[in-house]
């Protein structure tokens, strides 16, 4: 019914979504680097400057929820949250099989790995923010709560560093996906290959 030529690219991320990702990424980078200097004995030795690193880490930590809160005022971001939240039976199948990339299992705007990653990152931000607040306002908390918070903060941070490295590795391997996050649009062929269900949805 549509006689006009097929578009060659489709919109994947609006400006609001891209800026949310960008600011979160920069803040996460600052937090992970300063965290490494603060807590990894080897990095403390090479770099040091504890008060500067500490203050930078604390400021970046307090800023971290702001891009997420601002993004919630944008419809496109809320739609993404909804999509990331819901797991279909296909998502479970996708996670279980090694042939997940051959296109047999339909994939929506986000694949199951991206859904898991985003849930993990959001959960981590909330827990790290909570434990970080206990560490910052330590005089209002008893010792065992402070020690427990430090423990959770340290070890979760290591998991977040691993997840972030994995996220960057996947992005490194897919230039089109990176371009999608940079410019907002992706070629139709890429969408049909990686996110076929979403490609159909957008064009229908």
């Amino acid at each position, binding site marked *: 019914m549509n006689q006009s030529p097929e578009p060659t690219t489709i919109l994947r991320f609006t400006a609001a979504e891209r800026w949310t990702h960008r600011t979160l990424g920069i803040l996460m980078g600052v937090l992970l680097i300063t965290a490494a200097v603060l807590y990894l004995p080897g990095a403390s030795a090479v770099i*040091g400057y504890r008060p500067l690193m500490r203050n930078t880490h604390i400021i970046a930590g307090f800023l971290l929820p702001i891009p997420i809160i601002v993004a919630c005022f944008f419809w496109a971001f809320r739609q993404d949250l909804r999509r990331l*939240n819901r797991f279909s*039976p296909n998502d479970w199948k996708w996670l279980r099989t090694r042939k997940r990339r051959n296109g047999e299992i339909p994939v929506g705007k986000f694949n199951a790995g991206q*859904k898991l990653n985003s849930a993990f990152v959001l959960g981590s931000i909330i827990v790290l923010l909570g434990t970080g607040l206990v560490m910052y306002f330590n005089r209002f908390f008893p010792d065992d709560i402070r020690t427990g918070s430090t423990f959770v903060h*340290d070890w979760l941070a290591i998991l977040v560093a691993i997840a972030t490295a994995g996220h960057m590795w996947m992005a490194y391997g897919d230039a089109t996906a990176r371009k999608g996050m940079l410019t907002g649009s992706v070629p139709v062929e890429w969408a049909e290959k990686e996110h076929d269900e979403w490609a159909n949805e957008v064009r229908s």
Partner: protein
Amino acid sequence: MAIPVAVQPSMCSHSGMEEPKEAQLAPRGAPVGRRIVLGMIGLGALGIVFGRTASQAVNSTVATAAPGLSGVLPGTGGFRIYTVTNGYPEYNADKYRLTVTGLVSTPLSLSLADLTELPQTGMTKDFQCVTGWRVDDVPWSGVLLSDVLNAAGADLTAEALRFTSFDGAYTESLTMEQGLRPDILVATTMFGQPLAEEHGAPVRLYVAPMYGYKSLKWLSGIEVGQKVVPGYWEERGYAVDAWVGESNGMTDEPIT
């Protein structure tokens, strides 16, 4: 199109079917993302409550099973290493001097050899950091601060002691009354070994009854004066009289 559970590959091509906009937005599948986030918050809360026990278990396991990991994992060696300047300050063991100046009858400039000739004292006591971690039963040895002060003929009626580090930034303070206590050491060894670089080699202060920031690392100067000058961390909000469990709003068990 809205609820494809087992879609055939052919259905994935452009079908041209029109669906109402709402159908795309209706919830599909279980809210697993939300469950993960809530689960993590729950685990985080459990971790906060049981973290003290867990961290002791993890630290001792890493220390015995894989001591090499202590260098890369946070807090697993027991100690966390804090520096206030860029890296560890360098020193030359032959040229190192600890100066004792101010209200003293004999200003001293002690080499490492001079320090070993003063009376040696050992003690096994905990190290408690103001940020919450504690290392139990650390064997320390060196020269009692009071012995160093006596060797210099310090005016024991003076009010204050000021300590400086050859890292160029770290300073600390004690009152004379505190400095004469028998649990304050000019330490040269830890765990029976010469102090490691990260613990303040070659000489550091060990102020047993106070929080770790009072135990200045890379010690190079002791000055006897009449007025307590707040040290590096004290200028940044920490208590000058840093008794463990009775300062900085903390209730840790005192170190005796």
